[in-house]
């Protein structure tokens, strides 16, 4: 048995790097628990502020005991000076949903191409795609704004959808390339012998096998589209404006409408919290582009 194989088996049996020697026992729990608490505390503040009345929001010392109210949610969604958050929420769902779908479809196709076919310049192409992950939106916003303006797509869903698709492609391609490469090639060879075309093999054999990878990639792309602020705020105004555009309006409220904005913040954060636990396994791999597995 080769060393690599022993290592692989060892890892599978849970015999990886042993626990760190430091810190030990109670101290370890103490540090870990207080750090977790620190991570969670702002979430507590978001939700409780959304549930507070105005007096409680501005209270000094902070009101720990307060009577929760859903008035702020109601205000933010339905009243609030004619600026309801509902349409922003709907736009966010449509735009991140469609762009995620497109990024995953186009990305999975390209990922399979990179994992299974050889062609000139493939390596360079793959690493160029990887480098687009680093593209800072703020450096692209000026040319992209002019491009979108020229084709008459300012304040349209489609502009944001296409931009977010491009934004997430490198992520999808790089994560799924790894997943496709892990499929034993014999399975696809058997399908080829059975008379499947290459594209049929991709769609009917390979894609079903990497479903877990596709799901986590899709969630990650959806999170990035959902959270994106700069393109949304520059390229949309009302018709296609998303939740971050709504939240950006806080500065116009003269710092008074904390409750309402925290309510929208809660709505913006909640779906992410629900998905996170499902995602944990592949997140680090995704965020570092497979550099760390």
């Amino acid at each position, binding site marked *: 048995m080769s060393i690599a194989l022993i290592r692989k088996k060892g890892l599978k049996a849970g015999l990886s790097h042993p626990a760190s020697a430091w810190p030990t026992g109670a101290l370890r729990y103490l540090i870990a628990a207080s*750090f977790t608490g620190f991570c969670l505390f*702002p979430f507590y503040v978001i939700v409780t502020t959304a549930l507070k009345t105005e007096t409680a929001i501005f209270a000094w010392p902070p009101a720990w005991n307060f009577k929760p109210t859903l008035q702020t949610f109601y205000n933010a969604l339905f009243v609030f000076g004619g600026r309801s958050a509902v349409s922003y929420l709907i736009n966010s769902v449509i735009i991140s949903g469609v762009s995620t779908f497109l990024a995953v479809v186009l990305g999975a196709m390209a990922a399979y191409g990179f994992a299974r076919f050889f062609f000139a310049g493939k390596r360079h192409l793959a690493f160029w795609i990887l480098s687009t992950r680093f593209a*800072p939106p703020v450096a692209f916003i000026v*040319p992209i704004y002019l491009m979108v303006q020229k084709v008459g797509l300012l304040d349209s869903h489609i502009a944001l959808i296409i931009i977010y698709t491009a934004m997430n492609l490198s992520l999808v391609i790089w994560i799924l390339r790894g997943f496709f490469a892990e499929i034993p*090639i014999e399975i696809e060879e058997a399908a080829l012998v059975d008379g499947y075309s290459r594209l049929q093999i991709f769609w009917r054999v390979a894609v079903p096998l990497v479903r877990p990878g596709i799901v986590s990639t899709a969630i990650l792309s959806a999170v990035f589209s959902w959270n994106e602020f700069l393109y949304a705020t520059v390229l949309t105004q009302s018709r296609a404006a998303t939740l971050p555009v709504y939240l950006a309006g806080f500065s116009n409220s003269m710092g008074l409408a904390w409750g309402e904005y925290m309510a929208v913040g809660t709505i913006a954060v909640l779906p992410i919290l629900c998905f996170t636990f499902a995602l944990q396994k592949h997140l680090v791999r995704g965020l570092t582009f497979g550099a*760390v597995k």
Partner: protein
Amino acid sequence: MRIFPLVEVKPEAMKLATERRRATLVLIAPALAVLLALNLFPIVYAVYISAHYWLLARPQPPRFAGLSNYQELFFDERFRNAVLVSLKFIGLAVGFELVFGFGLAFVFNAQVRGMATLRKVTLLPSLVMPLVVGLVWFYMFNENFGIVNWIWVMLGGTRVPFLTQGTLALLSIVATDVWQWTPFVMLVFFAALQALPEYVYEAARIDGLSGSQIFFRVTLPLLRPAILIVLIIRAVDALRSLELVFMMTKGGPAGDTEVLPWYLYTTGFMSLDLGYAAAMAVLMLALVTVLSQLFVRQLESREAIL
């Protein structure tokens, strides 16, 4: 694909080769087209715009300016300040995140009850919408009713204007970024620690290395790639972040938190001077390209086959 040995008839093989070529094109072309249109083209276009006096508010067409936008940047005090503030922000935020994340990875690296759950929970901050992060920390740092101030007063201090005093404002934004990204850094280091093979440690123990020797001579060198990767990712992401500044300080007081992205954004979309903003964008892209090449090198050296 290792398919040719299976095929013996020559015309068949030719047909397969053509089909394979076509499949490659069909699979890769769409994604490539999107990236060319929305990544490569905008870069070229940005260079073009940066060579023009391009004012959005004016009806006249843009006028060729050569390198004068860049020349102007060179003498622009505000630009110099923005670069400096960005460097301070990146240095402080990424520095703290790496140090804390590194230490915490060792804390969380143990197979004891409940640790896995705690680790999962710490993931939450890195997925939250940055604007909401800005909003909630803006609230917590408030001078009159913020919780951070309340804690500070409880500890015996006097009220602090966290977001309206120069150095403090920058440090508050750094603290917010550290809150959001330390867990991610920790998780990367944790995953890297988990991937370290046990036999190396056995060998080290057999050779009689002490605990601290093992740390400095085995663990640390083996973690070097992970440190570099996370350093580059965080540096690039911190360089482009402007949500926290947007929400918490708007670049104030007196430009003390005016990071480069914020200056670029206001130049382009408040002063509407697109040519000048594009010149900044081009310089920023050059810097990001260098950093991303470093990242690619790191990754390339670990990819045996592609």
